[in-house]
């Protein structure tokens, strides 16, 4: 049988990347900042969103990605802001969000008057890092309880992000953790990464976070 080899040179995730690029452009035109929050489960993303909502009020919207339940969306909605829940499905549900999901969510969101859209990605630091969701800023939330070595263990998430939020700094006095070592490890993986330290419990460090949002 006659065989033929064809040169392809095409990105495997080209559909995801294309939708992501379109989303980014569309939101830029509308002057809406889109931030993708990635982290391990329990690092404090939802709590940061709750506190942020109190400052930015109706001008922000949070898209919650979870494998199951609408609990996070309900928590954030209590702050009086628009929320949208994506459930990737309870059985073998996806471990990450793709741009197609976000596009569908964006179609349901009331965009008028919005300044910022946040996505709380599915809680894990491996899979979400592989998929561009169309955000202007990818941010990793790393709580001080997770250990100093995590940037080195999840390098792609740190490489593909521009901001690292070191959260739960109120717990530092109780831990054998040196925050400078965390920061050194972040620098090793991504020398250009911006770092903000904050506590969603005490509110410490939130001014830097709000400054970052205003400047982005």
């Amino acid at each position, binding site marked *: 049988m006659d*065989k033929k080899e*064809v*040169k392809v040179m095409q990105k495997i995730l080209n559909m995801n990347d294309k939708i992501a690029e379109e989303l980014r452009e569309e939101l830029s035109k509308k002057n809406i900042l889109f931030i993708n929050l990635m982290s391990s489960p329990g690092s404090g993303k939802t709590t940061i969103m709750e506190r942020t909502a109190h400052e930015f009020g109706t001008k922000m919207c949070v898209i919650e990605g979870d494998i199951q339940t609408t609990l996070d969306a309900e928590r954030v909605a209590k702050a009086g802001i628009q929320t949208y829940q994506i459930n990737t499905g309870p059985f073998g549900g996806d*471990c990450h969000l*793709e741009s197609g999901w976000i596009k569908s969510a964006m179609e349901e969101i009331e965009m008028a008057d919005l300044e910022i859209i946040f996505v709380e990605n599915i809680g894990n630091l491996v899979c979400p890092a*592989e*998929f561009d969701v169309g955000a202007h800023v990818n941010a990793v939330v790393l709580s001080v309880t997770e250990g100093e070595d995590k940037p080195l263990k999840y390098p792609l998430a740190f490489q593909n992000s521009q901001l690292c939020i070191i959260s739960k700094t109120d717990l530092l006095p109780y831990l054998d953790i040196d925050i400078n070592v965390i920061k050194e490890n972040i620098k090793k993986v991504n020398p250009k990464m911006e770092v903000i330290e904050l506590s969603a419990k005490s509110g410490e460090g939130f001014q830097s976070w709000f400054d970052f949002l205003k400047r982005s």
Partner: protein
Amino acid sequence: MHEGAIVHSLLESAKEIRIKEKLKEITEIKIVVGRFHQIIKEVMLTNFEYMKTEYNGFENAVLNMTEEDVKVKCNYCGHEFSIDEPIFMCPQCDSFETELITGKELYIATMEGTK
């Protein structure tokens, strides 16, 4: 985990390429994956074996995955080096003014099939 989604995207693209190139039976797909991705070869191959059966003309296709090393360039002294650990420091001048030059590839290089 995410390998399933990646293989799905791969097969969806390959399906279109097969039609466009008028290939009957695909015998091989060559892909290139940079080592900076957290993509496990065995998991890719296993997913491919299961998922290819749902695509016409891919029943006998073999997935051939080549991994690309992570190479970094120092923008301070110009040195180029490979890394095994995710540490972006120049071994020659200790500078962190470095950038990744290879290691994030994720693409289909070639496809082979019967005419």
